């Protein structure tokens, strides 16, 4: 109990410190929202159509949504959540990254075949092999008690 109170006080102090420093700007002034496909007349998936690949604010070339983006956006998302948020709401990410969803992403978005969704087709059979070879890839999304409910009927 005493530990929790001390932790709470510590967090409050850190929050106050954070709030006090909040007046200091980083200068990386990205907009809250990106122009939409309707505004641009095209889907803004290829950043380098308008921005330099190595811009002053961002390495736009590393954010191009090419054919491997669905599998490889992890590193960019770790550090640049606000860049993702310019076009996507969290609900978009929640199709795959959420504490508990019942439908796999490719089932919920069955007709969006262009999105290269994970687990497309009969993944029930294929996961036996992928899971044996690299269980770390399963753990990232199914690693906590609530998300592992999907695994429980067979794995207990």
């Amino acid at each position, binding site marked *: 109990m005493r530990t*929790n109170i001390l932790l709470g006080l510590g*967090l409050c102090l*850190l*929050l106050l410190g*954070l*709030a006090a*420093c*909040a*007046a*200091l*700007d*980083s200068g*990386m002034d990205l907009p*809250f*929202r990106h122009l939409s496909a309707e505004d641009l007349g095209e*889907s803004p998936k290829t950043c380098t159509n308008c921005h330099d*690949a190595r*811009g*002053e604010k961002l*390495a736009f*070339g*590393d954010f191009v949504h*090419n*054919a*491997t983006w669905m599998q*490889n956006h992890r*590193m960019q998302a*770790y*550090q640049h959540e606000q860049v993702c948020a310019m076009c996507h709401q*969290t*609900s978009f*990410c*929640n199709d795959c990254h959420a*504490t508990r969803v*019942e*439908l796999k992403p490719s*089932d919920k978005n*069955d*007709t969006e*075949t*262009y999105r290269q969704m994970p687990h*497309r*087709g*009969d993944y029930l*059979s*294929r996961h036996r*092999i*992928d899971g*044996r*070879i*690299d*269980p*770390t890839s399963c*753990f990232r999304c199914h*690693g*906590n*008690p*609530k*998300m*592992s409910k999907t695994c429980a009927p067979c794995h207990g």
Partner: protein
Amino acid sequence: MGIFSCSGGSMRTSASFGRFLGLAILLALCMPISVLAAEVSVKSDTLLRIFQRDTATKTDAAVTPFYEYLQVDVDTPDEPGLAFHLYGWGRWDMVDNDYYSDATAGELLYGYLEYTRKEAHFNARLGRQQVFEGVANEAIDGLRVSSDLGKYFSGSLYAGQPVGLSTENGRDGDIIYGGRLANHLASWYDLGVSYKKIENNSKEAEETAGVDLSAYFPAGISLYGFSSYNTSYKGWGEHSYELRFPVGPVSLRPYFQKFQYQDYFGTGANSASPFRALVNSDEELTVFGSDLTLPVGDSWTLVAKAKHYDYKILAGSSQYLAAQATWSSERHYQIGGEIGFMNGDDDQNKYTLVRLFTYCDQLPEGVPLGFVSGDLVYVSYNQDIYGEGRSLFASLGVGQKYLDDALELKLSGDYSADPYFDKDLRAMLTVSYHFDRNL
């Protein structure tokens, strides 16, 4: 238990989280009128699925789950200030054939009040939310605050109750807290250190620290990396690093990953059943490989992938090789294909995968459809699974938008013949509705 989580057909709401959400809604209602002169947006996706399954009491019983995904946003688009965001899903089995253990189920994925200031990118969120902060990819019921800390630093802190542990022995004594401090120089580098601690019933469940890095070098070379340290087991759980650079028109992404199972899977009470056994295996997995992407003209993209898996204890190694070709128009019209080979350490870990797909939203005039989609996935296994050596999946979908694109109807049908299902047919109708109004 989440606010929508139910069992036995009766809705039960977590009292503590109910109070929390109640407070958030109350705060939302207290927003100044000028802020409420904003925009409310409601997005609803209603899914009706139909398929057959054998249940404990019936053979080929019809299963007809009805899903509702509801998203509500109240904010001032393009402007900082106060906002409220909510998103969740619920499922109801229309013909309760015991296929689902609960006839109804659901989850509030997020529901939070947000305050944003343009100065220093200050952001505060109160309520249920998904936190992506270095070592944290967690849903919490709590508070998260982030801000720039001058020109070269930024920081974030969060604390609350972990949603992922809400099914483990109630929520008393469950706590999660952590944060990330980053040092950055725009267009040069971003270096972050992060920390996360989770307690379950006041006992330590997980404690992790991590480092994340992006660095930009001349000639278009970028380096990205992430390492996590398990402070409970006192070892590095993961190292993941990748380079990205162009060679003429080709983009290359070589990468390297190393996982120590004890430190990666050793997350105490936060761990889950299929992975718990791996904690004591003393195994180390090393993965390296590269992607190669080559645009050809304005429409074609060719991709090659190679991945190698090596183990400290398990004898042998595995490789995955794949090639992909996609043709796409300026809009969403795409045709593509992929062929991949998983060459595992023995026959039971080998397969060949072929996928062909299309999505066409440029149909001839007179066709009363907005799009047609198709997908075909064929997998051949070197060693039979339940006496079957292959999987075949085929999917066909159509859709159309109405009411100035506010309403969209989608219908899809799937066929699968595989080791688990002889001839499985599934259908799904999706009704999506988007409503915006200025308050």
